[in-house]
């Protein structure tokens, strides 16, 4: 049963990717297609980040452990969409023209923090296998707490690139803060009850 559920989560997670491919090849992206792809992949990165962070709170709330079994798949899709997002910007938009890209990373704080978030995702993706969990033992947990920093970086990236006060970036920021606040509660409980 759990196996099928995990497979369904995997298949569902590929849908945004298929949608953007469809839109690219059938020319459905409007007058500024590259920007559309950038925004689309960026937003889905944040959505998957929120989903990944929701699994352990859901486990607490529902008393079902099945949620955490989706975490690895969802987390890897965060990396997948973040990489697509980065590739759109570096490859499709700037044609691997490194000078302006390096300029952006150094001078623009939203790009700097977005790029930092992607870099921090790499060790998490590399150490996501069961083998690695066993190998790293307690350190694995510590390492994977990086996702909290990544989440904050990701939502700041969205807020800082917005022109004025916009609704959507703030919503993501609030969701991420709420999800992180859950952790503090869980931790306290652990401390209190051993």
């Amino acid at each position, binding site marked *: 049963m759990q196996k099928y559920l995990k497979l369904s989560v995997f298949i569902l997670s590929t849908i945004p990717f298929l949608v953007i491919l469809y839109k690219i090849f059938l020319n*459905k992206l409007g007058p500024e297609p590259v920007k559309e*792809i950038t925004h689309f992949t960026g937003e889905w990165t944040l959505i998957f980040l929120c989903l990944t962070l929701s699994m352990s709170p859901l486990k607490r709330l529902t008393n079902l452990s099945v949620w955490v079994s989706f975490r690895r798949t969802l987390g890897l899709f965060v990396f997948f969409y973040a990489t697509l997002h980065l590739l759109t910007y570096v490859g499709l*938009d700037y*044609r691997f023209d490194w000078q*302006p890209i390096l300029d952006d990373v150094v*001078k*623009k704080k939203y790009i700097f923090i977005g790029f930092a978030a992607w870099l921090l995702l790499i060790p998490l993706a590399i150490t996501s296998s069961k083998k690695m969990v066993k190998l790293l033992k307690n350190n694995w947990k510590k390492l994977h707490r990086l996702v909290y920093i990544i989440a904050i970086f990701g939502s700041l990236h969205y807020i800082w690139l917005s022109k004025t*006060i916009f609704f959507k970036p703030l919503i993501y920021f609030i969701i991420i803060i709420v999800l992180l606040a859950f952790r503090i509660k869980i931790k306290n409980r652990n401390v209190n009850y051993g």
Partner: protein
Amino acid sequence: MIKFKNSEITPENIYKNRRSFIKSIGLSASSLAISTIPFVNKSLASGRDKLTSYKDITTYNNYYEFGTSKSDPYRNSKTFKTTPWEISIEGEVEKPIKLSMEEISEMFVSEERIYRLRCVEGWSMVIPWMGFSLSELLSKVNPTNKAKFVEFESVYDPAQMKGQRYPVLNWPYNEGLRIDEAMHPLTTVVTGLYGKKLPNQNGAPLRIFIPWKYGFKSAKAIVKIKFVENMPTSSWMWASPREYGFYSNVNPNVNHPRWSQATERVIGEGVWAPRIKTLMFNGYGDEVANLYTGMDLKKYF
């Protein structure tokens, strides 16, 4: 996607043929004044001079009065009322005047003016506007010797413009120019595009267009033009003085804090088209560079 009826627009191929026809019969000193207006086909790389489609020009707009998304202005401006409309020219002038849209269209002849539009966000279009030089309109008043700047005020009507119900910007939209910039023949009062009446989402009934400055300098739906002594604070300067300066000349060497200004994406060129290099003063340097002689454009951005 939104479909247009064929009857609603002049087909672009006919439109373009008409232009070459007008040129071929040699209306050299005609009201079209082809020779005096720097058309985009003058010594510029190909691709830059291709007219943007009517559909893209009228469905992809930054016009926060009607919403912050690019497709909002088209969707939310359909019922916007532009009649009656009056423009007041006031401030540091000997005798302020008020002109109705009817009076304006009687007084001034609109001609076709094809200009490039460069948005501060890093995209560009080529638009066949209809309009006349702002200097013609401003010559109807006599500014006092205190007048140094011209301020433009857009309409404030939250009942019709739902974007104005939110404090996204300091409404009404406000922009400004130095008097010599405002009097420059390239600074245009726009009344139409593609040979048609100006659509609401593009700033009907009357907007300003300054081809060598970023798009946001060109205020839409103007109701007031005011001569002032001190440099006005525009809505965008108010929102973020660090990001938006008073001059806002297109300048590939001065980066916006969030966007590189060295290159731009041409609207309508599709997903695989590369960016093109942005030109100093949006390619109008020959005409306007002398306005800024001796000025540090990095400081006065």
